[in-house]
């Protein structure tokens, strides 16, 4: 054994920096006794952007540190940039909403920062232990955020539900990890991979552990049949928190899944592929069908996100470089459209009261044509209609899946995309086709929401013209995962 040696800190510099900033912001928030949380909010947005800027310049080469528990490579860098930008944008666009809802406490941005830190560590986890720690660091702030509005029964219920089910999934994950450790004798991903490749026959314990691990991940990305919490939590949580839930943690969980299943469990692809295909098809189908009946826009978006995760899982099921590239592209475009959509949900106000019913959107086209146009763009994009970005995200997933011979998955994918087109179209119909009521919606626009909405709409429309930046970056990010 070598004597104690300090681990190299440079690969984890962004995480360490973000952690320190977050701790500093807690002190700042406590020290500033006033109710105003603007300073902390702005500071956290700035910190997130700064770290993202650092990540842009970060090396895409593979480094590992902390005894191989932490790894950074091109894939991690790309996903971390997405996560950081997603968090920054959700804090940025919900600032006014939070003030209006009298939830403006400094804990709100701080909790998001902690969760973001957890997510960054998730994408870099290279050991079952660091995986679990990162996952819990990500989840615990989310439970608190869901219950942020303490005086609302729905919000507290959402928080509690999320917590109980989240704990259950963590339990499954831990049990799976222990089985894997028991049968392979290792927690480090590289060692597990080595152990699995030398085994001629896979011990059933490893397969069981792997399936349990997969179930735990399925909980986190809300894939059917582990999706039950999503609609309730989305509906109950304050809208700004829902926006965060819908966008950022999903990306981190998918990144973690990619890392685990394309890493140590890569040799077991035949075992896990069928499970992932099942999860994907079930999610696509349920997301498409269940959303049709929803009246609450947040519930509808919850089911819609379940469906979207199904498509993303299709890319993982392909288990190939194009598949992972497709997943990366999918989450990037999903983030753009979700940000735009939630920017509009955050605007939905009627006479000083926030509303959430889909019907309340009626007449938006005549009152606020630009906002309605943006919403229509988002909806058509989510439905996967060309020439909008959403079509290409599905195109790449389907291409990768067909490449892997998963014709059944793709067939289900296109059929469910037609089914889900129905409820996206319904929103367009309510905004454009229905007559405007007298007491219609009165969008609570502010500069920030408008800016976010404009940027995301333009990005979704212009993706077809300039796809190179995203496609190129996604390609290199996926490639680093396979060059090892």
């Amino acid at each position, binding site marked *: 054994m070598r004597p104690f040696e300090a681990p190299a800190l440079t690969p984890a510099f962004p995480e360490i920096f973000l952690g320190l900033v977050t701790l500093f912001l807690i002190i700042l928030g406590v020290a500033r006794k006033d109710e105003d949380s603007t300073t902390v909010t702005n500071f956290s947005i700035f910190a997130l952007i700064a770290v993202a800027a650092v990540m842009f310049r970060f090396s895409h080469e593979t480094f590992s540190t902390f005894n191989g528990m932490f790894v950074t490579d091109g894939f991690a860098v790309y996903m971390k940039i997405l996560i950081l930008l997603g968090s920054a944008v959700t804090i940025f666009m919900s600032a006014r909403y939070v003030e209006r809802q009298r939830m403006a406490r400094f804990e709100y941005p701080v909790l998001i920062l902690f969760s973001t830190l957890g997510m960054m560590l998730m994408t870099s986890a290279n050991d079952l232990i660091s995986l679990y720690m990162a996952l819990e660091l990500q989840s615990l702030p989310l439970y608190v955020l869901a219950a942020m509005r303490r005086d609302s029964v729905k919000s507290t219920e959402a928080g509690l539900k999320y917590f109980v089910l989240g704990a259950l999934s963590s339990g499954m994950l831990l049990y799976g990890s222990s089985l894997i450790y028991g049968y392979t004798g290792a927690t480090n991903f590289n060692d597990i991979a080595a152990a699995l490749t030398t085994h001629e026959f896979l011990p059933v314990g490893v397969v069981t552990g792997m399936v349990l691990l997969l179930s735990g991940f399925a909980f986190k990305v809300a894939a059917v049949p582990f999706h039950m919490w999503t609609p309730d939590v989305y509906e109950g949580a304050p809208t700004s928190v829902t926006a965060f839930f819908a966008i950022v943690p999903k990306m981190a969980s998918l990144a973690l899944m990619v890392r685990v299943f394309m890493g140590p469990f890569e040799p077991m692809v035949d075992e896990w592929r069928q499970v992932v295909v099942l999860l994907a098809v079930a999610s696509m189908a349920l997301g498409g069908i269940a959303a049709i009946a929803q009246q609450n826009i947040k519930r509808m978006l919850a089911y819609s996100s379940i469906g979207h995760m199904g498509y993303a899982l299709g890319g993982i099921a392909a288990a190939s470089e194009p598949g992972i590239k497709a997943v990366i592209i999918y989450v990037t475009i999903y983030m753009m459209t979700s940000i735009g959509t939630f920017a509009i949900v955050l605007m939905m106000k009627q006479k000083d009261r926030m509303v959430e019913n889909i019907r309340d959107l009626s007449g938006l086209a*005549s009152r606020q044509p630009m906002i309605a146009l943006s919403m229509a763009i988002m909806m058509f994009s989510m439905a996967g209609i060309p020439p909008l970005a959403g079509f290409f995200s599905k195109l790449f997933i389907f291409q990768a899946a*067909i490449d892997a011979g998963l014709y059944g998955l793709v067939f289900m994918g296109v059929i469910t995309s037609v089914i889900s087109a129905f409820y996206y179209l319904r929103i367009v119909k309510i905004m454009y*086709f229905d007559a405007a009521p007298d007491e219609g919606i009165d969008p609570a626009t502010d500069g920030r929401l408008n800016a976010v909405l404009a940027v995301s709409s333009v990005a979704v429309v212009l993706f077809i013209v300039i796809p190179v930046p995203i496609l190129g970056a996604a390609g290199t990010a996926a490639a680093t995962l396979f060059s090892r």
Partner: protein
Amino acid sequence: MITFPILSLVTFLPLVGVLFLLFIRGNDETVARNARATALLTSIFTFALSLYMYAHFDKTSSEFQFVEQMSWLPGLDINYKMGIDGISVFFVLLSAFLTPICILASWESITSRVKEYMISFLLLETMMIGMFCALDLVLFYVFFEAVLIPMFVIIGVWGGSRRVYASFKFFLYTLLGSVLMLIAILALYRTFNTTDIILLTQVGVPEMMQKWIWLAFLASFAVKVPMWPVHTWLPDAHVEAPTAGSVILAGVLLKMGGYGFLRLSLPILPEASAYFTPMIFTLSVIAVVYTSLVALVQEDMKKLIAYSSVAHMGFVTLGIFTFNQQGLEGAMFQMLSHGVVSAALFLCVGVVYDRLHTREITRYGGLVKNMPRYAAVFMLFTMASVGLPGTSGFVGEFLVLAGMWQASTVFTFIAATGVVLGAAYMLFLYRRVVFGELNKPDVKAMKDINLRELSIFAPLVVLVLWMGIYPSSVIAPMAPSLTRVLDQYHARVTHKTAMTPAIQKTAAPTENTAGEGEAQQ
């Protein structure tokens, strides 16, 4: 020769108009006026540019011309590739020709949200032209499906009372068809690592794979054409759409299906096309006869013309799958002729609908007395639809039946009965609307067509007569390209055991016997 990317220019010029439209500000009145003017000007420019393109188009060549290629999706071998040959050039012209007419036709009838309406039409124009120019399957698919968005909005916002139902049905029906094509495209890409349409015609797709891919293509083209039994969205969409929407729908959108068969199914999947020919023939003659019968009992003018569209498009699919020169030329000619004639017929309905706001046939009668000019125009287009010699409708139907006769006499006979039925329902419609007693006071008060309406009809009238009297001006430029398609097809199919009677009977008597089939009308 043209050195600049003319096809991209024609395709995306309408988007420039959209950009201008987006920035129009002011009160409703000015916005509406400026929007109309901007849209009309843009579409006329586009049409002029497409004429310029046609002037430089080498009409004796069978090759793709004005080809542009650019790298598009990095990492995949999918390119932005445009180009036209003798087949697609006419569809580009047709789309560019009908759009200004549509905009003029909605000059007065559309009064709410004029700006959005014009934006939708210009977007639609870009998508349509782009689809006919695309030489890459993914690009083709993008345009093919993108058409749905503006059309959905046009039907849904400016349509009739059941517009929501009709627009959803239209959108979901066509989407369901086209997503299956996407799977087929990706399967082709997986095997041959290209989506270039020209390259794919040369690779020789394995026969078993061809059949599956052919069926997937059929799903999307059959819905678009539309073929029986997936035609049910069409009557609803037509009835509810505003006049100009019906014009574009019948004039161009239906042609996308026929164009798809010609551009993709035949050249890329020749063996499968031959294999499934009996099925296409069966479905087509059912379409011709059944929808003609349905058209006979319609009470709604638009619905009647919608069903007649299905019947006429049945001739198109019949012609395409005869795999001989007359059949293909006939199918092409029929598509172009139907594009003009059905568009004109919907405009005719639009004229009386604007005045009386009903499409019920029994509400009219005796229009010849107070609207003589209208009666004359309507008469001409009715005759063109029936297929009177001297109008464009005759040439297409005649050529298709002549080509059909070489493929199958039985199917020709059944299809020819459709011609008779076509004459029946169109003349019946004309008699009930234009002749008879002029005894309803509100009908009596209707004014004859004004100068604007006349200027819309004038180019259509000229075109219908021109195509009827001098058809070779249209057929000659497309013939080399059709010959190329046929040569490719026969090179691939004839060396196997002949699968359709078409190949065995190439020397069968043509003109005379086919003429008998035609004579039945």
